[in-house]
């Protein structure tokens, strides 16, 4: 192996990535590679929807009710304009799925970010301060953990509906969903971070740093955060899959994102009404997309966990 180039320079960085154990274990399993490619494709498809989608489903002018319920091309009655058919309003399924995925990913990422910041923050505080505050935070975490995420999200949504006027709620619905999912998933971050902080706090170097007058916050950020990066990344990845699925479930139940901004869950809810009349594609294709997305993210998370866990070799 040649000596790595100066750290930070792009070629050196690239080489370090390709030379790392992480990259090695990534290329070792075709399942991991496959899910990585899937996630990449889906994210590109979602982000690029305004450019890449064959039809603009938000433009009412392009809607042709005549074309409603067109089956996929390979089924009798299919129309090559609509590769995988149209829904009850004549919208191109492929395009609605691409746009729907945007919303799903947006809510997913936002919710993960929210719970990450909340959880890591609370974990740092609990672990560093200890005492009553720690006990309080961890007690809340225990109680929170006893309630499934979906129930918390439903309750938060229900309460916000009751507390906010109808039109205001519709405006804020997206934020409410992000908040509801985010607030239901912070505990695992907090626990992990707290555990690490408790371990690090007692170590000599932290004491030494404190003796020479370095602010505790600086110690935390410089020494503890790098130690929790790995586990937090794993939790966040698995949490992303969970958040996407929770959003889809909420939207399917009709309490998620507003109908004007349909996510994959909304599309499935819509398609569910036509399952019995034989128009299966309206529900199945968004469902398939959702599963592939969640499965790929989960597989990546699993791989990360195994790759970052030295105990599992």
């Amino acid at each position, binding site marked *: 192996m040649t000596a790595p180039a100066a750290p930070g320079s792009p070629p050196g960085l690239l080489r370090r990535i390709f030379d790392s154990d992480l990259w090695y274990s990534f290329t070792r399993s075709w399942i991991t590679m496959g899910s990585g490619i899937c996630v990449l494709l889906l994210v590109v498809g979602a982000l690029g929807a305004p450019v890449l989608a064959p039809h603009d489903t938000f433009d009412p002018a392009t809607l042709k009710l005549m074309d409603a319920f067109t089956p996929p091309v390979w089924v009798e009655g299919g129309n090559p304009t609509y590769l995988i058919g149209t829904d009850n309003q004549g919208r191109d399924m492929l395009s609605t799925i691409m746009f729907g995925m945007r919303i799903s990913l947006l809510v997913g990422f936002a919710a993960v970010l929210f719970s990450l910041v909340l959880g890591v923050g609370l974990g740092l505080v609990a672990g560093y301060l200890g005492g009553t505050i720690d006990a309080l935070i961890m007690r809340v975490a225990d109680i929170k953990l006893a309630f*499934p995420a979906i129930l918390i999200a439903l309750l938060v949504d229900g309460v916000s509906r*009751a*507390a906010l006027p109808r039109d205001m709620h519709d405006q804020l619905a997206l934020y409410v969903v992000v908040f509801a999912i985010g607030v239901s998933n912070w505990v695992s971050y907090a626990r992990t971070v707290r555990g690490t902080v408790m371990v690090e706090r007692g170590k000599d170097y932290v004491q030494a740093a404190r003796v020479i007058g370095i602010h505790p916050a600086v110690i935390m950020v410089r020494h503890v955060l790098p130690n929790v990066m790995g586990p937090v990344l794993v939790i966040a990845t698995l949490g992303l899959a969970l958040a996407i699925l929770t959003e889809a479930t909420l939207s399917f139940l009709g309490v998620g994102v507003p109908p004007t901004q349909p996510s994959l869950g909304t599309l499935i809810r819509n398609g569910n009404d036509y*399952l019995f009349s034989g128009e299966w594609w309206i529900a199945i294709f968004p469902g398939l997309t959702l599963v592939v997305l969640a499965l790929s993210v989960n597989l990546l998370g699993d791989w990360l966990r195994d790759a970052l866990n030295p105990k599992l070799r």
Partner: protein
Amino acid sequence: MIAFILRRLMQAVVVMLTVALISFALFNFAGDPINNMVGQDVSLADRERLREALGLNQPFWVQFGIFLQNALQGDFGLSYRLGRPVEDLIVERLPATLELSLTAAALAVFIGIPLGVYTGLYRDTWLSRVFLTASLAGVSLPTFLIGILLILIFSVELNVLPSFGRGETVEIGWWTTGFATWSGIKALILPSITLCLFQLTLIMRLVRAEMMEVLRTDYIKFARARGLPDRKVHFGHALKNTLVPVITVIGLQFGSIVAFAIITETVFQWPGMGLLFIQAVNFVDIPILAAYLVLIALFFVVINLVVDLLYYFVDPRLRVDRTAAGGEATP
């Protein structure tokens, strides 16, 4: 032992009071309860009279006390949407939800644990790989989609199982059961599979992970070094140590099943509490929301208590109190 139970009970009471406070706050801050009860054409004076009659002009804590008193007697008021006492609605629907949840939980435990043990012990067989891959799919398939797929296959395409409702039920006292009739059992199949699948994969993956963790420990290595047969090492030493964390999770997962029943019940139009709840969320039917909240909290608190007690019986380390342990540390 008694101190332990008492401490747990105290904690349970605190949790229940907190939840009660939240659900009571729902009534008070989520719009004006009077507006929710009466129509537009009731005069201001009438409204005031009603307010006084209901005790709504009293201080917050007094009202909360009254709410608690009523809640303890199971009185949560009238449903805004259905105009019937909430407790009646809940009692009507409780059996449906509990039967569904218990069936799903039993399936998840009795299939999930053996699969977890198998895949933990024989990590590299092809069967283990199949189970593991399938379990990942199970974690990534949202409950509602499983339901939809099952309906599509077994109800729409094959037309062998019903896609909604409980089938024929038989009344036993206030309880209605679907177990007694063939159509009731048939109606239970798809929903309970839908509901159990996620928990099943979760339990299986947990048992597998714990099993692998325990198999790496020194005492398992020492048990092997003593020449104990595999059967004893795996199903005695290893499995018993695995059970400690598994019991907790299974306990908590049962609560989870009741929550996920909301989704299953929506997909299959199963006339249980979940369906009632989701309709209440949609229609902002606060008395039902509040009652459901309290009920679910009670449910979780009871499960937690049971789990703690089970823990206590499985793990001898928790049985010693501190003074005894300290005294025995000297040889």
